[in-house]
């Protein structure tokens, strides 16, 4: 009996293999046509979301922006003159797999590391801008981010320009160890010189800004603005929960929470981000001219 069944099955599979395979139906919905809001879980046409700079039309959630997307939103078209674009880390020898990870990310994101810095204009006002990109190892700060931010402050101090930084970071980059930690002190010291020269620094906090970036330049702006509902804090929520063995209250470490506790000046939604920055630059350019005598 059993060999008979086996024989039958063998033949059937033979026939199955010979039968023409039904052509795979083309997916009716092309990949990427729709984007799901991570907050309210509704689907929207990607083009519509992109046109609105990735603000959810349903709930107003501010989705993550790439560095390129952020620059497009904020600065005058074609005004970017990138600074130190070619910098790459020299601290990648000790950690296994780190170099490979970097080169993979470099080709997939088109970035050399987690921050883009440069000179730009915003509605005609000159500024030095730095934009972090959370796609690149969670926007973590290693030697390249630390160096580019420090150089940006030094350049701005020399040229007497304001600095605008968009932070998006999980903190210090573990793979570069103590070197990453020291970048917190390095950037803060470069910032101090810019500050002492009487120049403006606007820190813009986006989702997420945590760890070593929060504990250095991101928290030291003359003016600190944040996007709505962004996660901002020193320790990550999971670490805190594990430490205190409690569930965290709703909205803990979000922009609104920080505003309430006095750590940011204002929450600014994307549609009015560019004009807000332009206004702030204008308001400070007058005083800067008076003080510096042109």
């Amino acid at each position, binding site marked *: 009996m059993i060999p008979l069944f086996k024989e039958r099955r063998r033949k059937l599979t033979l026939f199955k293999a010979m039968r023409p395979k039904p052509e795979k139906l083309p997916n009716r919905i092309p990949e990427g046509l729709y984007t799901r809001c991570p907050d309210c879980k509704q689907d929207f046409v990607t083009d519509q979301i992109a046109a609105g700079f990735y603000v959810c039309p349903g709930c107003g959630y501010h989705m993550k922006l790439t560095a390129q997307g952020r620059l497009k939103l904020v600065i005058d078209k074609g005004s970017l003159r990138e600074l130190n674009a070619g*910098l*790459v*880390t*020299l*601290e990648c020898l*000790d*950690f*296994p797999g780190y170099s490979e990870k970097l080169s993979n990310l470099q080709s997939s994101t088109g970035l050399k590391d987690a921050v883009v810095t440069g000179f730009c204009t915003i509605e005609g006002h000159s500024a030095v801008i730095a934009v972090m990109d959370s796609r690149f190892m969670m926007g973590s700060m*290693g*030697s*390249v981010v*630390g*160096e580019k931010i*420090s150089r940006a402050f030094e350049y701005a101090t020399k040229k007497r320009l304001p600095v605008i930084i968009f932070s998006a970071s999980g903190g*210090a980059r*573990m793979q*570069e*160890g*103590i*070197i*990453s*930690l*020291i*970048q*917190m*002190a*390095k950037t*803060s*010291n*470069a*910032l*101090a*010189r810019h*500050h*002492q020269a009487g120049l403006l620094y606007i820190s813009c906090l986006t989702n997420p800004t945590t*760890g*070593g970036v*929060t*504990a*250095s*330049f*991101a*928290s*030291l702006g003359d003016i600190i603005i944040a996007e709505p509902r962004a996660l901002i*804090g*020193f*320790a*990550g929520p999971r*670490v*805190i929960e594990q*430490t*205190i063995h*409690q569930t*965290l209250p709703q909205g*803990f*470490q979000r922009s609104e929470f920080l505003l309430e*506790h*006095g*750590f940011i000046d204002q929450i600014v939604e994307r549609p009015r981000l560019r004009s807000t920055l332009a206004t702030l630059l204008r308001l400070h350019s007058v005083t800067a001219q008076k003080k510096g005598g042109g």
Partner: protein
Amino acid sequence: MALQEAEDRIRQLDIELSRATDTATQRELQQEKSQLLAQAYGSISSFDRVYLARKTTRPGVRDYIGRIFTDFFEMHGDRLMQDDPAVIGGIAALDGMPVTVIGHCKGKTLDENIKCNFGMPNPEGYRKALRLMKQAEKFRRPIITFIDTPGAYPGLESEMHGQGEAIARNLMEMGSLTVPIITIVIGEGGSGGALALSVADRIWMLENAVYSILSPEGFASILWKDSSRAREAAELMKLTAYDLYARGIVDRLFGEPAGGVDSNSRSIYERMKNALLNELSILGRQNGRALVEQRYKKYRRIGDCTSK
């Protein structure tokens, strides 16, 4: 065998030794003990040093203050919110010279540990430290900080009160202080919580102290989602005094006797006092601006992305 296990075994041997009656067993046990000691302290791994750095019997900030300085007057509170016992500080005299001393305090007994939050500061601790440092600048006193913390406390209230801002402010302000600053890592130097008291002209370290971006446990749990791989992480992290000295982050090492500084701590106070007097006489000759400039350069060159 890891150092911690070896020490446990030695403790056990000591008990057996005290109970042993005949000389043959005593000799045998004694031999095993000396073998273990030689083996354990002969090849110390990075994780062994983490263990030594965390030992509760190790001298803490109060021991150093008490044995190196005189006339210590402790000051409390950040003048904003409250006093944080995880950071202590005040004025003291170093061979007659007034200085400001600040340090992380873990406490010795369990009660003290709890009171000091195991040396994990809240924002109030950093703000108290900054207040004392600004005061030191006003009265032209050098600043000496002692580092011994697992890290800044990751809690609900510490976030509410701006842990990130407090650390950031200290980093920025310490870079601009016009008086000499010397930092000594005496135990654990954990992450931003340690850095916020250690932007200094000179960074010194005890041989078995460690200084890292994160605890090995935290590092392992972030990278491999497995905190039990801490031993492996420690080797990778380059967190020992020797590693940091080789990288030019630490300027001077203080050797420890085998078994750690707690096994014979008398000499360390003397050596440290002499080193402080020497270094402060050198740094004291420079004016404030030169100090700030040199301190800036010291940090500026770390990770500057240009080949050496």
